[in-house]
Structure formats: structure tokens, C-alpha cells
């Protein structure tokens, strides 16, 4: 075979190297797709009828109706924003001890396992499911939403912060310890300066996530703008729904830019 034919016959190496595994993955994927699409129940007639309603919904964006239910929108918005602020603050404060306990280089094994369990529980369930339980416990309203988001914040912050604490430069901590520092002094002068920038960055990021989540907690009665949106959609007031959606998108964008700015500034 000459060089040209060899060059033309060359193929890049595939992503999965073992041939049997590659074909098993392809075959399994195909089989799954057939099975999944086979059991998919779709009412196409109903879907076709909905297109007209979808058109009306889209038309409601031009122009959106901010005015007629402004009081409800304002109330929902304030609930969402206050929920975001308080849940981020409380969640971040509570996540610090959990993170310290979940860092293997600081905590003894029993404490480590306990804190890791707290993190795992908080991270497994969707915020909305946790909100259902908290609404059942604390009653309807933004307090249940605030507690839900604070709980979710603990798992998120503690996990990432604990990983960061485990990755610190050991020599700095050791130098502080060699001066005879106590455990708290070690934290304050050996560890805190190393993880602070990332801690601030993560908090800003979590603030952003908490606002997004606060917009849906209203669906299960935990207060916030989601409640307003749900009511508007239930009453087919698409103009108000469009206004609420635009406000949510605008605030999410503002939060995202602000949190991105803070993260770049501290890192």
C-alpha cells in the first residue's frame, strides 16, 4: 500500500477504545431509545390544539402587561428577593462549621462522617421536594422558602468549601502551627486567608442560584414570585405571566453579571 492510500485509510482513534464496549454502548443506546419511544404516551391531538394557545402566549410578550397586577408582582418579587438574601446569609454562615467538619485534614473521623452525611442529604433532593416538607412543617409563606434555600445552601457551600480546605497549601498551616497557635488561631491565620477568595466567590454564585430557585418555590406554597406566575398562568392572564417572566430573566441576568464580577474581582 502506498503512502497516499494509507493516509486515506487512517481513522482517528474512537472515544471508547475497546471495540466490544463501544458496540455494546451503541447497541444499548439504540435498544433504550426504541423502548423509551415505544412507551412514550403523547396525546398529539391535544398538542396540536395547544399550538394556538402557545401563539397567544407568545403574543402576550408584545407588549407584556406590567400594570394590571403590579401589586401582586411587587409582593412576589419582594418575597423572592428577601428570601434570597436571608437564605444566602444564614446558609453561608451555617455552612462554615459543616465545611470545617467535612474537611478530612481538620476534623476527626466521626465528625467528618457526620458532616459528610449532612451534605449528602442536603444535596440529594431537589429544592422543591424539601420545600414541600418544610411547608408542611412551618406553614405556607416565605419562611418555609427561606429555610429550604438555606438548607440547600449548606450542602452546596459546605461540599465545595471542604474540598477547597482539603486542597490548601499545607506548609502555611504548618508554619502557623509551629508558632504554637491554637486550633482557632490556625483557622484564622493558616487556613482562612487561603480559602477566603473562593469562599466569597462561591457565596456570590450561590446567591445567584438561590434567586433562580426562589422563583419556583412558590409553586408548592413557599412564597415568592413563582406563586404570582402560577396564579397568572392559572387564570390564563398571559400578559401578566410574560411580565413576570421578563422580570425574572432580568434579575437573573443582573445577579449573574454581579456574581461573575465579584468572582473575577476576588480571584
Amino acid at each position, binding site marked *: 500500500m502506498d503512502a497516499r492510500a494509507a493516509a486515506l485509510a487512517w481513522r482517528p482513534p474512537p*472515544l471508547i477504545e475497546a471495540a466490544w464496549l463501544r458496540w455494546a454502548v451503541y447497541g444499548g443506546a439504540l435498544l433504550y*431509545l426504541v423502548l423509551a419511544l415505544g412507551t*412514550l404516551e403523547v396525546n398529539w391531538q391535544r398538542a396540536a390544539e395547544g399550538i394556538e394557545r402557545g401563539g397567544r402566549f407568545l403574543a402576550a410578550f408584545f407588549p407584556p402587561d406590567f400594570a394590571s397586577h403590579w401589586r401582586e408582582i411587587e409582593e412576589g418579587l419582594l418575597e423572592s428577593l428577601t428570601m434570597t438574601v436571608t437564605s444566602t446569609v444564614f446558609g453561608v454562615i451555617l455552612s462554615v462549621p459543616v465545611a470545617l467538619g467535612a474537611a478530612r485534614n481538620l476534623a476527626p473521623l466521626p465528625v467528618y462522617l457526620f458532616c459528610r452525611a449532612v451534605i449528602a442529604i442536603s444535596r440529594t433532593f431537589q429544592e422543591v421536594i424539601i420545600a*414541600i416538607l418544610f411547608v408542611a412543617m412551618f*406553614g405556607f409563606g*416565605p419562611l418555609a422558602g427561606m429555610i429550604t434555600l438555606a438548607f440547600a445552601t449548606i450542602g452546596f457551600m459546605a461540599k465545595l468549601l471542604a474540598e477547597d480546605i482539603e486542597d490548601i497549601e499545607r506548609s502555611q498551616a504548618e508554619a502557623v502551627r509551629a508558632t504554637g497557635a491554637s486550633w482557632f488561631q490556625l483557622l484564622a491565620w493558616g487556613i482562612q486567608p487561603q480559602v477566603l477568595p473562593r469562599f466569597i466567590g462561591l457565596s456570590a454564585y450561590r446567591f445567584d442560584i438561590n434567586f*433562580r430557585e426562589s422563583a*419556583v418555590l412558590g409553586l408548592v406554597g413557599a412564597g415568592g414570585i413563582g406563586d404570582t406566575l402560577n396564579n397568572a398562568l392559572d387564570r390564563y392572564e398571559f400578559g401578566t405571566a410574560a411580565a413576570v*417572566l421578563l422580570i425574572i430573566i432580568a434579575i437573573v*441576568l443582573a445577579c449573574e453579571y454581579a456574581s461573575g464580577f465579584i468572582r473575577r474581582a476576588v480571584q
Partner: protein
Amino acid sequence: MPVVTHEQGTRVWMRRTRAGDLVAWLGWLIGVALTVLCFQFISDRTIWGFVWDAPAQAADLLERSVPPRWSYAHELWRAMWDTLNIATLGTVLAIATAVPVAFLAAYNTTPSALLVRPVALFVIVASRSVNSLIWALILVIIFGPGMLAGILAIALRSIGFIGKLLYEAIEEIDPTQVEAVTATGAGRAQVLAWGIVPQVMPAFAGISVFRWDINIREATVLGLVGAGGIGMQLQASINTLAWPQVSMILILILGTVVVSEWLSARVRHAII
């Protein structure tokens, strides 16, 4: 370095200058005041009688939901299968849409940075800023309750996620490889296939599996607004106050999420 000199002439190191101290103090003051104000607002809208009752309520809830109704599990397999399908088909649909969008959004592959790129970036931003539950709420009104609304809701939310991470991966590729392929006289499509795609393939596979894992979690609650899956059973059980069924459903969700997270971690570990 900020230093304070005492009357005796001893110099003591300070962490901040006096102005720095003042700024930090002011920052804390504003932060604390804002938090208190926000909490005040929430507190005004709370019936505190219910809150003080919460420990009793929690104990009551726990007592009612233990033991879980194990026999209810067979009615749930079908719903769980639907949930997995919503997550998986939604992810597949999102990948199919997000890949072209990502290539249009990355500055080094976009056909026109002036016209096409802003549109692609807008699609990504719009998709990302709306939660999948809200997408589901809207789609249920349009298409009626059922799995179709769920699949589309998952897909619409995931396009932004996959699109954003993928276009960032495309922008971070090594340009020398692209240059080498271009130097052989390759056309645009060939440069894409041989210079760019192989570089982003591992990132792409990792992002997709990661999003699939998140989508399983999200798909478990879509049923609350009528978009199919196990959330519908959850909603029905909560509405009828059938707490043993609720705890059974929660156990099943817990198991599924743990397995999918393990699977996604394994796959991502194998790729990267």
C-alpha cells in the same frame, strides 16, 4: 504595611489601615442591616404560631410516614421509568439543539460575530435563566399535561447549560492544532471535523453526562405541575395526605439519584 506607633515608640503591625477598617466596618454594617431588614419582611408574612409548632409537626409527619408503604412500589416502577425517559430524551433533544448553537456562539467558529453570535448567546441566556419547572408550567398549558411537556421543559432548560459550557470549551481549544489542519489545505468543514471536534469531544461527553445527572433530579419534580413522571404520584400522595406513600416515593427517588450520580461520576472519571 499598616503600622500603629504607640506613645512609648513601639510599632505594632495592624491588619488594615484606619480607612480600611472603616470601610470594612461600613460594609459589615450595611450587610447586617440589609439582612435584618429582609428577615423583618419575611417575619411579617409568617404566622409564628405555626413555626413554634414545627417540632411537633415534624414528629407527627415522621410518625405518619414510617413505615413506608413498601407494597406501593409496584405502582411506581412505571412512573420511575417515565421519569428516566423524560430526563434522558430531554437531554438527547437538548444535545441535538445545543451543539449547533454552541458552535454558532463560540467566537472562533461562529460564521458571523456581528449577526449570528449575539442571537446564539441570547438563546443560551434565555434558556438558562428560566428554571425547568417554570418551563414545564408554561408547556403544560400549551401541550396539556403529560410527558411531552416534561421532555420539552428539560430540553429547553438544558440547551442553555450544555450550550454555555460547550461554547466555552470551544473557545479554549489549542489554536495551533486548528492552524496545522488549515495549513494542509482543509476546508472549513474539515477544520471543524479534524481540528476542533476532537479537542472538545471529552468536554462535550462530560458535560452531557453531567447534565443528564442533573436532569434526573429535575425530572422527579416536574410531575408537580403535571408534566409527567414520579412527581405526579408524589403530588397525588401529598394531596391525599398519604404520608407512607410519600416516604416510599422519596426513598425511590433517593436510590435513583444516588445511582445516577455514581454512574455519571464513573463515566466522567473514565473520560477525563
